[in-house]
């Protein structure tokens, strides 16, 4: 057992697809919250294996996509400084800000480095004592324990040349905002499996109860997603709400208590603006006052310059699940992963980038990636 290939087995997928088709008697709209789930769904053509009355809409769970323009601009301003070594996850480098992206800045000579882990940025600060090392700490709850650990370790190791530009976001306030919106179409959710490895499933129970929706915590492999969809459809058909956790191989009901404790020690909840969506109350994390010496925004006192987004881009509606990438006139034309106009084309987890990567801008009918063609046979047999 390697916990990967087993969850990509075709005949098992076929069984689940057939069960979904048997279960769904009415039209249902289900949102997968997480960008990683969107990526798997589009890569394997899972949305197209489903019966026509089960629609998947892609949620705003891509932290790279929703990082606000002002924060990208602050990153740009800090990374431009001659005394700064700026560290970031790779997929943040191409996010367009008002003054261009970080990759462009790097090509102009700025010291910008891609790190695999925030802990690598801490080690870099230790090895470059004469540089100010700044880590771009973005992400959902999944990434908050490693980022909190970086701040905690930097303090423990007395590294006064390390700081973080923090733009963390939280899933439950986003789901609440989505369900409160008058134009909401979502009837059930595939819950964010990896966020729940950290936070557990308890904070989703009040949301499920208040809005009478099923939330089924799902993993990221094809079988995980198909099982999640089947369980969500079963709940909807039987008019049951509540939280189910079929991803129990990784998710405990209380999450990871050590991680939650550290997050609480380092970060505090704040209001946060989401690119393409707007401000959502209580939907962010920032460093606590106790960690102010590691807060790059305080150290560098940078101001963001707010500029308007491209008028052609409909990423805001895509992030809310109101539209699909191919509804955008710029999709695959002016807007591609090489020159993205908006948030959802930037990261591999953005819905537009996933649609583009698997050839959906080239399609006239139901033909797609090799993965789709292979799994597509299942759809015909059902």
């Amino acid at each position: 057992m390697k916990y990967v290939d087993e969850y990509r087995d075709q005949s098992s997928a076929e069984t689940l697809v057939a069960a979904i088709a048997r279960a769904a008697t009415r039209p249902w709209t289900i949102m997968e919250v997480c960008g990683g789930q969107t990526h798997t769904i589009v890569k394997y053509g899972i949305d197209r294996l489903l019966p026509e009355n089960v629609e998947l809409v892609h949620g705003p769970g891509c932290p790279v996509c929703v990082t606000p323009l002002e924060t990208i601009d602050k990153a740009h301003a800090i990374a431009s400084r001659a005394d700064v070594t700026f560290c970031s996850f790779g997929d943040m480098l191409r996010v367009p800000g008002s003054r261009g992206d970080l990759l462009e800045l790097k090509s102009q000579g700025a010291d910008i480095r891609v790190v695999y882990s925030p802990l690598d940025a801490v080690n870099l600060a230790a090895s470059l004592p004469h540089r100010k090392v700044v880590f771009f700490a973005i992400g959902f709850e999944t990434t908050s324990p490693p980022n909190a650990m970086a701040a905690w370790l930097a303090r423990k190791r007395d590294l006064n040349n390390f700081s973080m530009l923090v733009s963390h976001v939280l899933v439950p306030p986003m789901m609440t905002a989505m369900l409160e919106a008058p134009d909401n179409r979502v009837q059930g959710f595939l819950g964010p499996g990896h966020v729940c490895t950290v936070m557990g499933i308890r904070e989703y129970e009040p949301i499920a109860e208040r809005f009478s929706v099923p939330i089924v915590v799902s993993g990221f492999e094809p079988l995980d997603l198909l099982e999640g969809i089947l369980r969500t459809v079963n709940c909807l058909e039987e008019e049951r709400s509540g939280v189910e956790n079929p991803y129990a191989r990784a998710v405990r009901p209380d999450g990871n208590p050590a991680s939650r404790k550290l997050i609480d020690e380092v970060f505090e909840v704040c209001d946060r603006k989401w690119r393409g969506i707007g401000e959502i109350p209580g939907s962010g994390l920032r460093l606590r006052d106790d960690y102010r010496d590691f807060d790059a925004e305080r150290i560098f006192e940078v101001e963001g310059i707010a500029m308007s987004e491209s008028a052609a881009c409909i990423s805001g509606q895509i992030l809310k699940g109101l539209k699909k990438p191919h509804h955008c006139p710029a999709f695959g034309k002016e807007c591609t992963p090489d020159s993205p106009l908006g948030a959802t084309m930037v990261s591999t987890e953005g819905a537009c980038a996933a649609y583009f990567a698997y050839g959906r801008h080239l399609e006239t009918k139901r033909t797609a990636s090799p993965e789709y063609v292979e799994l597509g046979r299942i759809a015909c047999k059902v």
Partner: protein
Amino acid sequence: MPVPPDNTMCLGIPGRVLETYREHDVLMARVQFGGVAKRVCLEHVPEVQPGEFVLVHVGFALSRIDEAEAARVFAFLRELNQLGELEDPPP
């Protein structure tokens, strides 16, 4: 520097713990992903033993993979197959 293929937000990758050690008083491990071994912080899953699998995100182990729970979906699939045969008898 090339971007590692698994440097994607919220992606958690299962890997097998090869050996554990301490560095700056933090519990670390060498963890194997396919043919590649990487350094991973194990501080928040200290109970994990070499040979067990952990879910790793950006160099940080978030949880231990539960072997019994991992097999559950296959039992569910067997049930579904039996149900499918009952509902759609072979011609």
